[in-house]
């Protein structure tokens, strides 16, 4: 969408209602229009962006750090950095790709600064397990913990590539944008990440 048209639409949406109804109006806008509204000083537009992308950003962070507390802090940090850098968002890539880029950098900084802490099996008090039997829950947690520990030992680029491809389900092209590398390099990283993961998991069937 043209920036001017997006700004007009976002501004009209912002002016049309009170603050109570702004959230609902912003929910109708796409990411580009919300960014324009944010730049125009509409803080509610950023709330909508957070609401829209918070789950995927949290999952990305969780897959890097392996525990809820750090993932929560990192998610907040990612959105805070995004808010500060919103003026620098050119719209060349999608907002989610841009948020992933911020998220990967934040996560790599975090995991390089400290040893990853994976949660104890019973420490996940935030997890919604209402529709899960105890045995299923334990099995799921054990498998998840083993894979996360193996992923945590991968080199940073391989780790980022694997997480973005396998769990965030980004295409190789999108991953290349996030990591600032070529598609061929992304595929090579993915190949080596899987090979290293196989060795780390000892060939056991999960």
């Amino acid at each position: 969408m043209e920036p001017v048209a997006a700004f007009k639409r976002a501004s009209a949406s912002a002016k049309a209602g009170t603050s109570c109804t702004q959230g609902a109006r912003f929910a109708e806008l796409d990411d580009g229009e919300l960014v324009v509204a944010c730049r125009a000083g509409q803080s509610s537009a950023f709330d909508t962006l957070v609401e829209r992308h918070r789950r995927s950003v949290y999952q990305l962070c969780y897959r890097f750090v392996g525990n809820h507390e750090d993932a929560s802090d990192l998610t907040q940090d990612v959105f805070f950095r995004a808010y500060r850098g919103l003026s620098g968002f050119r719209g060349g890539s999608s907002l989610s790709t841009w948020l992933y880029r911020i998220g990967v950098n934040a996560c790599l900084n975090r995991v390089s600064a400290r040893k990853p802490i994976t949660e104890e099996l019973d420490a996940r008090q935030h997890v919604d397990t209402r529709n899960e039997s105890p045995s299923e829950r334990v099995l799921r947690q054990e498998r998840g913990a083993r894979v996360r520990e193996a992923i945590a030992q991968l080199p940073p680029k391989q780790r980022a590539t694997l997480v973005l491809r396998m769990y965030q389900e980004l295409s190789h092209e999108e991953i290349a944008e996030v990591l600032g590398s070529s598609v061929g390099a992304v595929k090579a990283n993915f190949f080596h990440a899987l090979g290293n993961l196989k060795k780390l998991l000892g060939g056991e069937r999960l």
Partner: protein
Amino acid sequence: MGHLTPALLVDLAEGIKADQSVPHLAQCDACRRALAELRATITDVAWPGNPEHGGSDVPEPSPLFWDHLSTRVREAVAEQGAHRRARWFEAWSRPLVALPLLATVTAIAVLAVVTLRKPLVPNPIPATPLPILQSTLLPSLPPLEPLGAPDDPALALIADYGTSLGWDELREEMAGVSHSGGIDEAVITLSTEERQELQRLLEEEMTQPSALGAS
């Protein structure tokens, strides 16, 4: 013939390319084995997880968490805005910035006051100042006292006022002693040019002893 590249193996493992499209696979056991291991690892790592979590391995936080997260982000953003405003004020309140700024503002204010106190359009210089003086002012003036000497205090007073006081100061000085139709009132209503002309005439008169003596 070389083995398949990692990128090509990834494409085959993910189904981006069909096995049949790569004839080398049918001839190379190593590449077939590498491809099979790759597919198995992808399957192992991409285990289905909990269907309730959309097949995700990430445990779903409680619904309250999302609200708390949004609130924390909103607070952090608001704090950032307040911090920016505080930094702006702090930057502007530094002595190196504030003092020159204060001096500039003061200078502008003084200049504005001085400018506003002066008439924007100067009074037009009358083409014939003396006839105006004679026809409009002099008839209403009381008869002048004869000038006795060059050091006459009345002349000295006018000369002093004409040279040392500003127009507004002169107006204020004369306000307390002027009366309607008096020479003092005539003096304070003169324009700058008229006043200068009057001063010149008076000085000229004072330098002519004969004229003083004749009166």
